[in-house]
């Protein structure tokens, strides 16, 4: 038997996974999984941008900060969706 897998423990990076867990159906979870991965997984380029999401203008100096804010916005979006408010 080999040495087994290496295990690394990281502190919580963000709380977006909480959104992915609140889907009410498999389809919801799947969409939230996709949102989670395309926004949170992979190469992040540092830069400045202005983004408007869910009617809120977000102006930030670093993309890392934007992504954190997007997570919050998406969490609110998911909550609205669950309450049937989303158009």
């Amino acid at each position, binding site marked *: *038997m*080999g040495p*087994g*897998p*290496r*295990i*690394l*423990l*990281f*502190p*919580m*990076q963000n*709380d977006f*996974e*909480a959104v*992915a*867990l609140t889907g009410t159906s498999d389809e919801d*979870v799947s*969409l939230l*999984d*996709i*949102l989670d*991965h*395309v*926004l*949170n*997984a*992979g*190469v*992040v*380029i*540092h*830069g400045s*941008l*202005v*983004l*408007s*999401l*869910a*009617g809120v203008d977000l102006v930030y100096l670093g*993309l*890392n900060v*934007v*992504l954190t804010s*997007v997570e919050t916005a998406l969490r609110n979006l998911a909550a609205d969706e669950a309450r049937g408010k989303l158009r």
Partner: protein
Amino acid sequence: MTKILAYCAYLRRPGVSLSPSGVNGAAVQELALDGLGLLYSQVEWPFDDTALQRYAVEFHGVVSHMFAQGAVVPFRLLSVFEDPQALADFLVAHHAGFIVDLERLQNLVQMECVLYFAPQAGPRPSGKEYLERKAELLRLAEEFVQSLSEALQDIGKEIRIRESKNGGRIFILVERGNEEVFRSIVQKLPVPERFARRFSGPWPAAEFLSDSVKAPQIAGQR
């Protein structure tokens, strides 16, 4: 205004097909340098906020199309470059690191298991009860992670865990083709009482990218 939206990088080889359409119907283009390919589209910027969910799915479609054919290094949806020259400069500057990671992860995929506290009915606990319950749940979560790592010893190349306030998220690197073995092993594992778990994958091995690839430094920026 337009900007350059990067999708993913991959090792170029004959016979690889590109997704025909990208975000908001934009053409998917390839930038290539010494065996490394990078997919991108020229997109209107800023994004239409009302279409962000659709863009996310379309972006995912482009990356998934490539990932089905081999390892990719995905970019995040909101990672954009000013113009094609900025993207080309980026490719030259980070070519070596991307190649190393792609070769290391060539036949590997990322599976995920999320363990979270199942919602509790009943009266709101007191502060002491809440803390006691939380400590107990954390202990159960640690036991589950330990069981999972032991059960996956033969197929898990590497395991990483991110704790969250609701439980934990476990990333497991497995060889491509072992996804069903992973699922069958995880499904047999008993879930601790008051917990629920969900697993997904295969995903590109983004959690296992080296730091220099995941967050590359760009000239002129801190």
